[in-house]
């Protein structure tokens, strides 16, 4: 057992860092490090740079054009790129629908979709939640009725993250109302340009447009766009959620935020002294760092175990709970470090002079906005209470 990086892993770390420094747009890195909103092109520029290098399929096997990296390499990549200010790789295509297409899709689907996900040509979004089906996802009602070689889809999806940028959506739809509700769900891949699809923004509490409603009005979807068997979609959906939860822990991003918080705590003054000298604040910072290190090692343990079993197990739920809690704590601490600078509402996109002249520290500009925004983390991807239900059943056997 050894928790240190081997010389080969250290060399890999160096290679990733050098590549990132040479290929990441400094303007994008600045936006990421200060926490500004990113545009579609900011994400895609980095995506294309990685694709050119052959590094975009981080967790993918080589046969599909992936890196074939082991779990430690993937972790190093995540950590180093996050540290350098690279935007998060949007997970919906790369980490969520792709593993499903690889495992359950047919050859045509694999040949058509996977290269376009790798190249960044197609941006994907997720059609899971509905207004009446949040935690109780299997109760979903968005209906797909068979008409010859097509499904006619009617209904609504919601909380569709960055759906305003998406070219394709993967959807859970109801194809049967017989038997258990889990047994009437199918998994469809839908082109967002299909007539009858409407995307409407939902403005969140930080006044940002990050998520959407997606409406389907008699949308014609070829049956060939169904992944796997009809009415077996729930199996694929759960497989996907497992993949979502491992990535959702966000360890790399958390480490970046900790670093920023350490800097903030050195620079900000409290009662005339650096904030880091305030033992109440320092204890909180120390505690979250310790929790994050425990999460990181736990993540590496889960990834190493997964490498042998392939699909993520229910342990992924544990990572989701802990990771989301830590992310929230970090945004809370950053806001507290900001002190009165947390008060102004600073609109995104106003780089340069902020609304409030005395608000000079870039690190604080979005502090409270992030705090509000990050309340989502314990709710999305299956709320933390649902994760506890999953662990109860799958791990504890209660």
């Amino acid at each position, binding site marked *: 057992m050894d928790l240190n990086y081997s010389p080969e*892993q250290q060399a890999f770390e160096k290679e990733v860092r050098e590549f990132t420094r040479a290929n990441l747009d400094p303007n994008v890195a600045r936006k990421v490090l200060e926490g500004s909103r990113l545009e579609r092109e900011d994400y895609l520029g980095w995506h294309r740079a990685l694709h050119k290098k052959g590094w975009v399929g981080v967790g993918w096997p080589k046969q599909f054009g992936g890196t074939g990296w082991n779990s430690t390499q993937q972790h190093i990549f995540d950590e180093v790129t996050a540290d350098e200010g690279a935007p998060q790789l949007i997970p919906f295509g790369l980490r969520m629908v792709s593993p499903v297409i690889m495992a359950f899709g047919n050859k045509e689907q694999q040949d058509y979709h996977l290269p376009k996900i790798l190249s960044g040509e197609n941006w994907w979004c997720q059609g899971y939640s509905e207004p009446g089906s949040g935690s109780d996802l299997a109760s979903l009602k968005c209906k797909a009725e068979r008409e010859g070689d097509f499904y006619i889809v009617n209904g609504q999806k919601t909380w569709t993250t960055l759906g305003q940028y998406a070219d394709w959506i993967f959807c859970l739809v109801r194809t049967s109302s017989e038997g258990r509700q889990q047994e009437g769900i199918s998994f469809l891949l839908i082109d967002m340009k299909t007539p009858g699809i409407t995307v409407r923004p939902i403005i969140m509490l930080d006044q940002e447009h990050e998520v959407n409603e997606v409406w389907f009005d008699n949308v014609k979807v070829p049956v060939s766009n169904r992944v796997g068997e009809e009415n077996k979609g729930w199996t694929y959906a759960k497989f996907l959620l497992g993949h979502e939860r491992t990535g959702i822990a966000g360890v790399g991003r958390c480490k970046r935020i900790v670093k920023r918080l350490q800097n903030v705590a050195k620079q900000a003054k409290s009662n005339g002294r650096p904030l880091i000298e305030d*033992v109440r604040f320092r204890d909180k*910072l120390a505690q979250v760092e310790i929790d994050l290190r425990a999460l990181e090692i*736990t993540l*590496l343990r889960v990834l190493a175990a997964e490498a042998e079993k392939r699909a993520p197990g229910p*342990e992924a739920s544990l990572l989701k709970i802990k990771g989301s809690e830590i992310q929230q704590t970090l945004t809370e601490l950053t806001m507290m470090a900001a002190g009165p600078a947390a008060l102004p509402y600073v609109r995104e996109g106003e780089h340069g002079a902020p609304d409030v002249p005395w608000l000079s520290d870039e690190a604080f500009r979005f502090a409270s906005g992030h705090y509000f925004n990050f309340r989502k983390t314990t709710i999305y991807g299956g709320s933390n209470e649902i994760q*506890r239900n999953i662990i*109860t059943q799958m791990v504890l056997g*209660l």
Partner: protein
Amino acid sequence: MDFNLSDEQNALKDSLAKFIDRDYTFDDRWKIIKTAEGWSRKHWNQLAEIGLMALPVAEADGGLGGTGVDTMLVMEEVGRGLIVEPYLGCVVVPAALIKAAGSGSQRAALSEGLASGETLYAFAHTEPGQRYERNAVAFAAAAKGDGYVLNGKKVSVLGGDAADQLLVSATVSGDAGPSLFVVPAGASGVKRFAYPMQDAQRGADIEFANVEVGADALVGERGKAAAAIDYALDVACAALCAEAVGAMAELHKITVEYLKTRKQFGRVIGMNQALQHRAVDMLMHVEMSRSMAMEAAVACDNPNAAARAKAISAAKTLISQGCHFVGQNAVQLHGGIGVTHELNTSHYFKRLTMISVTFGDADWHLGRYGDALLAAA
């Protein structure tokens, strides 16, 4: 980065696990803790046969040269089996002290009895009113002729009841730092007050009144023992972390079993979501603790003392918190039966609680970690 164990490590873990399952059941343990000594020489010898006493002793000193990870594997089982024989106090800590403080020939001489399990050492360090501070040693040693005279009191000495030899920290008047002396427990002027501790382990408070020792009683260099003491207590903390993980995981398992069998309102209590989620939160503490026990074990062999201290304090903070959470909730989920002496639940709870306050509690280690943050700022 590698989470695999070697064949030797797996074999070690297996043989200790077999010993516990066969010879160290909860009933066996009951009989042992009710004896006058409170621990069993027979079981101690069995542990020595498995190689546990030689494990942490350096190869050059006649031991097996085990790593921090080896000790972690042993201590996890010690925790699972709630072993009361003083392995931590009389083997792990003295081995670390002798390795770090001793000079060449002295190390081998002191290690011989330690590695065979025939000589029990204990580290007499904590002083009345001292809490957890490591290097403020008020205990006095005065130079006299070629040797020294020791005067003072040491408290909460783990294994101090049974030890044949005491490793005593003391400050020689005029010195800037502490020294380490080895003193026979039976030396004239040494008075022991032995007692059982809350968790059925044994310890002692020890008074030294004009205890005269020779120059050869000094372990290592005079006034230079601070780093060795710091190292040995870090190793002790890492071992406690691993012991806690073994005990926590077992207590969690016992609690989940209870939730599956205990019935109220006509159904098993594990059907209640309030209890289910508590059991999940306990599991999260166990798994996060397991990760940090690994971190601490690996850190034991880190030659960079500052990095070692930071990692081990991180682990002891998180695991001390986990000891409280898992222990308290195991008792709560058991209900009334959880607060009885009869069931193993309370025994695990008490051991976990005592681990949390041994060699630094969560707050003390959080402060030490914070000091490292401040030093880096």
